[in-house]
């Protein structure tokens, strides 16, 4: 099992994200600091001047006039009020200490007034408020009307800065994805290599050399390897096909020579040997694709194909019955399917006495073809094994097995080419049941 991995793309995006975040944090910090100072300097100066004036005016007035005067001192910028007793002071925000220092720097006389500044949040925005003592110890409170938007501004700026950052991430993600695309194509090609798709025996599916240098290198190497494998397979196929063809000519000579033999028993025995050899050559050719046929699917009456097999066997004195509809049209490679079904029927008759071919075409279900016999069946543990090429279970079964043990492999291959499944099972009442399921052949 492959450990699930974030993948190259994920990793690169993560690195980008980290880089952008750090960059963002640092620049925000620097920007924030600079703006704090400039805003406050300006703000602090104004506030200081206003406070100096307000304090002087209030100091000169008697206590009973002070609330009214305070009201007059209230501008559209600052709210000023007066009280004789000090309200409890909330904890002071640290940021305000620096503002206080600024104010005091500008108007040093305010230092003696026990001025306090704090940040309060009556609504959604924070405002600067504060108080200072008059000469008689009473309290002048003030509050800025306009909220201090530094914090909100900071939050807005975060958002504002995040939008390009996110856009940047998406863009780079897409770009990196493009870079990685050839790699994915390569992986797919490697995955399908050797599956024999498109009917190609070693037909190389060249992957275009694209993308960054490293990927190009890998692609080129893969293509070369693919071509080498293709050549090897083609050579092997050609060589074996040539052997097959060349074997048939001497077999033909042998066959004609055998006809001259007077002794009937000997002639027939030799005839059987020749037939067996021919059957072996044929199955080898079919398995290796040595005949060089690339068959296309065509509309075929599968019911008649199956019925024919039963008729043929019956003509040769064997008991094979066909059970199923009279007609059933479907799309498949008919010569291949005929070969597969012939192999199954021959197998059934080799090990059993009777065989039944069943075609089921229930609507809503896969098309199923069953070939059942009454032979000894196959040991459960070997049911998978017999589908492998060149495997024969001679030990457990009769010794007179014909051929290379390719019969069922050829069937499996034909069925796979149709997108179907071949399953072997032992019947409860004895014998073997070979079932072909064809999910895609319906028209």
């Amino acid at each position, binding site marked *: 099992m492959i450990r699930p991995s974030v993948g190259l793309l994920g990793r690169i995006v993560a690195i980008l994200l980290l880089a952008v975040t750090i960059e963002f944090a640092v620049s925000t910090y620097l920007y924030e600091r600079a703006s704090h100072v400039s805003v406050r300097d300006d703000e602090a100066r104004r506030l200081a001047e206003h406070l100096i004036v307000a304090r002087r005016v209030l100091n000169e007035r008697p206590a009973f006039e002070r609330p009214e005067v305070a009201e007059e001192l209230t501008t559209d910028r600052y709210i000023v009020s007066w009280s004789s007793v000090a309200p409890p002071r909330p904890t002071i925000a640290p940021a305000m200490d620096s503002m206080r220092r600024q104010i005091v720097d500008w108007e040093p006389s305010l230092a003696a007034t026990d001025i306090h500044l704090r940040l309060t949040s009556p609504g959604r925005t924070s405002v600067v408020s504060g108080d200072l003592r008059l000469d008689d110890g009473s309290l002048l409170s003030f509050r800025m009307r306009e909220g201090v938007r530094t914090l909100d501004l900071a939050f807005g700026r975060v958002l504002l800065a995040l939008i390009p950052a996110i856009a940047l991430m998406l863009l780079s993600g897409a770009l990196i994805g493009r870079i990685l695309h050839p790699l994915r194509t390569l992986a797919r090609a490697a995955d399908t290599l050797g599956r024999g798709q498109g009917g190609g025996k070693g037909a190389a599916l060249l992957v275009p050399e694209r993308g960054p240098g490293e990927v190009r290198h890998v692609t080129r190497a893969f293509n070369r390897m693919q071509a080498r494998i293709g050549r090897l397979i083609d050579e092997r196929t050609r060589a074996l096909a040539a052997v097959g063809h060349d074997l048939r000519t001497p077999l033909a000579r042998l066959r004609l020579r055998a006809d001259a033999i007077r002794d009937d028993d000997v002639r027939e025995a030799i005839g059987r040997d020749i037939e067996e050899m021919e059957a072996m050559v044929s199955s080898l*050719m079919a398995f290796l694709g040595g005949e060089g046929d690339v068959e296309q699917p065509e509309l075929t009456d599968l019911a008649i194909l199956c*019925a*024919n097999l039963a008729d043929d066997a019956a003509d040769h004195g064997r008991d094979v019955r066909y059970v199923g509809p009279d007609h059933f049209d479907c799309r498949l490679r008919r010569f291949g399917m005929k070969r597969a079904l012939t192999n199954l029927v021959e197998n059934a008759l080799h090990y059993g006495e009777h065989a039944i071919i069943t075609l089921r075409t229930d609507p809503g279900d896969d098309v199923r073809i069953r070939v059942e016999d009454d032979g000894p069946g196959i040991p459960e543990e070997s049911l998978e094994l017999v589908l492998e090429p060149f495997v024969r279970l001679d030990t457990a079964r009769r010794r007179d097995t014909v051929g290379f043990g390719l019969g069922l492999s050829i069937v499996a291959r034909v069925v796979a080419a149709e997108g179907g499944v071949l399953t072997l099972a032992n019947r409860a009442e004895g014998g073997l049941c070979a079932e072909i399921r064809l999910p895609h052949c319906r028209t």
Partner: protein
Amino acid sequence: MTPPTILIVEDDPALRTLTARALQENGFAVKLANAAPEMWQALEVGQIDLILLDIMLPGTSGIDLCRQIRQKNAVPIIFISAKGSEVDRVVGLELGADDYLAKPFGTRELVARIRAVLRRGGLENAPGEREAGILGFDGWTANLPRRELMSPSGAQVELTGAEFDLLVAFLDNAQRVVARERLIELSRARIGDSSDRSIDVLVSRLRRKLSGAGGAAPIVTVRGVGYMLNVPVERR
């Protein structure tokens, strides 16, 4: 009556000799050619009744040769091939070969095939006309060169060689009664399948295959005489 002359075109000398001997023993006159040039020579010199043509020849391939022969000559051709595949058989028949024989073949099979092709050729008035024959009847399409039958729904319907020959006999005699004896004779001409089924079994199988979803096959029994295809046949 002079024996039919068979021209054997085969590049393997031993097989050529053996085939020749087998044919001579069965009463045929034989001429030999190992490749295309000799074949053309033989065709010019004398009357040839049938060519046994190996598909895999040095130089020009048997397939090309077959095409060239067909352009000039309607002489029956039997393909001999070391490839045993069905697709190959169809290609050969499509190109105008009259039959197809896969290596290895026995004397009996070879002789019977040759006789069948010669007889078929004899039955035909103009062999060349039949080669291109695509016949339609009752929605069905019979492709004679490829020996294929297509159902009204467009599906390929598998017929055995004997069944196809039977169908051809009916098609050649559409809407006429064909005597049982004639059909038996015809089915004897066909071999390779060493079965002993009767003509009635063959007819019933052909009927079953020709039965459509709606109705019965267009072959009727004429009691005491034989069978008849009771629909018109159109040549395409």
